């Protein structure tokens, strides 16, 4: 019984740690650490407008992507 407690604890703690690790790796791959200054300052300028603009940008990208793939 004791052994299983240990096994569970190991699994749970390593799993939690792994989540943090994967989050970090995702960030690195995404380029979030490429430019510290910009990402740190971004928090200062955070507002609803910019969020809206970001969503619109994504939409525009999606649209353009569709368009460019359209067979002609």
């Amino acid at each position, binding site marked *: 019984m*004791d*052994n299983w407690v*240990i*096994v569970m604890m*190991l699994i749970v703690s*390593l799993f939690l*740690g*792994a989540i943090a*690790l994967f989050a*970090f*790796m995702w960030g*690195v*791959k995404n380029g979030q*650490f*490429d*430019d*510290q*200054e*910009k990402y740190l*300052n*971004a928090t*200062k*300028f955070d507002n609803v*407008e910019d969020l809206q*603009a970001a969503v619109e*940008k994504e939409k*525009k*990208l999606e649209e*353009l*992507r569709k*368009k*460019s*793939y359209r067979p002609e």
Partner: protein
Amino acid sequence: MSNKIACTHCHLEFSEDVMIVDGTHYFCCNGCQGVFHLLSDEGLSSFYDKTGDIKLSPPTHQYEDSTNFNAPAFYDKFVKLNSDGFNEVSLIIEGIHCSACIWLNEKALHKMEGVVEANINFTNNKATITWVDSIVKLSEIIDMIRAIGYNAYPYDASLQEVHANKERKEYYLKMAVAIFASMNIMWIAVAQYAGFFSGMTKDMKTILNIAEGVLATPVLFYSGWVFFRGSYYGLKNRVVNMDLLVATGASLTYIYSVYITITELGEAYFDSVSMIITFVLIGKFLEVISKKNAADTLDIITKHLPSEINVVRDEKIVSIKLEDVVVGDIIVIASGEKILLDGIISKGEGFFDESSLTGESKPIYKGLEENIISGALSIDADIHYKASRDFEHSTLSNLVSLLETAINKKPRIEQLANKLSEHFSTVVLLLSIGTFFVWWIWPHSFEESLMVAISVIVIACPCALGLATPVATLVGLNLGAKKGILFKEAAQLETMAKVDVLLVDKTGTLTVGKPEVIKENTFDGFDIKLLYSLVKSSKHPISQGIKNHIIQAAEDIDEIIFDEFSQLSARGIVAKYKTNEIIGGNLQLMSEFGIEYVYESDESLFCFAINKQVVAVYELSDTIKEGASELVKFLANKDIQTIMLTGDHQQSAQKVAQHIGIKEVNYELTPQDKLAFVESLQSEGKVIVMVGDGINDILALGRSDIGIVMGSGSDIAIDVSDVVLLNDSLDSLLSAFKISDTTFKLIKQNFGISLVYNAVTIPLAMAGYVIPLIAALSMSFSSLLVVGNSLRIKYKWKRS
């Protein structure tokens, strides 16, 4: 003085009466006003909330037509198609001051129809812009950036840079995994060691072993992949390198540990597996980040040359591509421009600065029918000249192709670490194999012999050896950076410590390179305002020297607007103010205007006369930088030979050399001569450091073992050299030598520590006395010793 008011856009302060008033806003110029209205119209005025009080540069610049960005040739060179089928370009944005500027540029571009993505890096001002070419053209994008008060120019994001970034990212990921796993293994190992001494059940031990095994697996196969790759390439070239030792050590230990875990016999070494990989990976990463991207020479050259040139075609001035100029074309050069093609002057006259080609410090006067060579700079001459060679055959391109070969032939001195690690790895592998057989032949079980053999590899873990060089050089690079010395590559610190000969250029390196006033004589009737206004309007180095002298001595001199003003080439300046006739120039000019004046001096003279009466005489000379003789003395004590290489005349070269104490002087050298000199010394087996600043030095800089360039030197020279002295001082050159010396000593000490350490522990391991705990502890301990030793030097240096 009236009140100063800040411009609404750029925040620079000006007095109220010169400002443009626009409602409640004040603007310093039309440019700022235009940008302000554009931003309001676009709904981007929240930009001003973000800038705060940061001052921007006003957008006063007039730009050429941007449509040439749409030329197919330009697209070929700079624009790429990305995987989504969008066009992509890399730009450098000029005028970025703060993160609000980044915000503004990105927002403004995102608002444009057809722009997919604009990403600007704050740290290096580089931008990547993706757009759909059928909707918007690149020229419109550039126009937008210019319209909001910035400028953009393209750069070739060469493959190498992309590659280097990718490699760095890969290392980040691998290290993240390795460090995460190692840290977790450590706390599991604590439980294991506690159990080793106080006893625990076999089941418990197996559980802990499995947990460690699970963590060590990604470390070995994901993070440790670089070592497998490295040893594969090593073996392919028949070299036993450190990677092979790490890879075999780690994977043998891993296999053995898996075997132990399954059979439940003895102790597993999973902690050692992950620790070896992690430590050596960190060392390798430090090496990667301090390595210079091998310079893409072709790229360097094209980057610094304007691609267009103004020529006269059909009575009109048109700009055409440099490559399209044919022999016989009439080329137009304005003052301050660089000559890109060789030719003969057909109209105009003036001074040229050929110092970048010949090293001659004084400007050269050229008139009609005289030859001018590419690479020279027009100081005050507005001329037309006839091209006598096309670009491919011009002096400048010859220089470029010579430079390419020079860089390719640059010798690479083998680093101590590489030499050592090869032998070390071979010896350790042999010892371990030997140990295995001795134990096996001596009656022991297969497992036991294998365990001892593996413990030899684990204990001889090259962690300390792998960290010895990178940590020491990192300390060296940091010391250098603090003193304004940029080593482009860590390995250069080691090379520089082995130097035999120092070659120095004169102009701009040992001397300031610009004439400075060394003696001032003023007589009755002298008016500093007149002189200041006179010299301020000329670009000639002598005038500039006097101007700087006046500014240093006095502040706030009101400028006078002359009624008449003209520059006489090679002689001086003549002006009229109210009833006064003002003449400034050399003795020749004085006698031309009928002024009898005698003054004897070896230096360049500038006489200043008001109404035919000489009221001031200045002696100017190129001054020697501080610390020159100390440098020469220091090097002489270290048995490093100092030789001066200059394109200047014997007289001025020897004057400077004597003053500083340099015994060997070579004068009147062309860039090719300098290169030949470096080559001949290298063929004698000498390690050469060359210090220079101009284009006339680039060949020698590229070829010598270490090329050091002054920060104010020409861009090409900075690119081809290995070390940049940001503050131009000879003191920092001296520091560079000292730092490289210290660092090399440090590297040797670190190797000493890790080798002595291994000499003690390997026999213990071979005798079978090493338990896993000791192996793991000793590994960390040796690495700590090496790191600690390196940091010690840093503090020692700081104190002195």
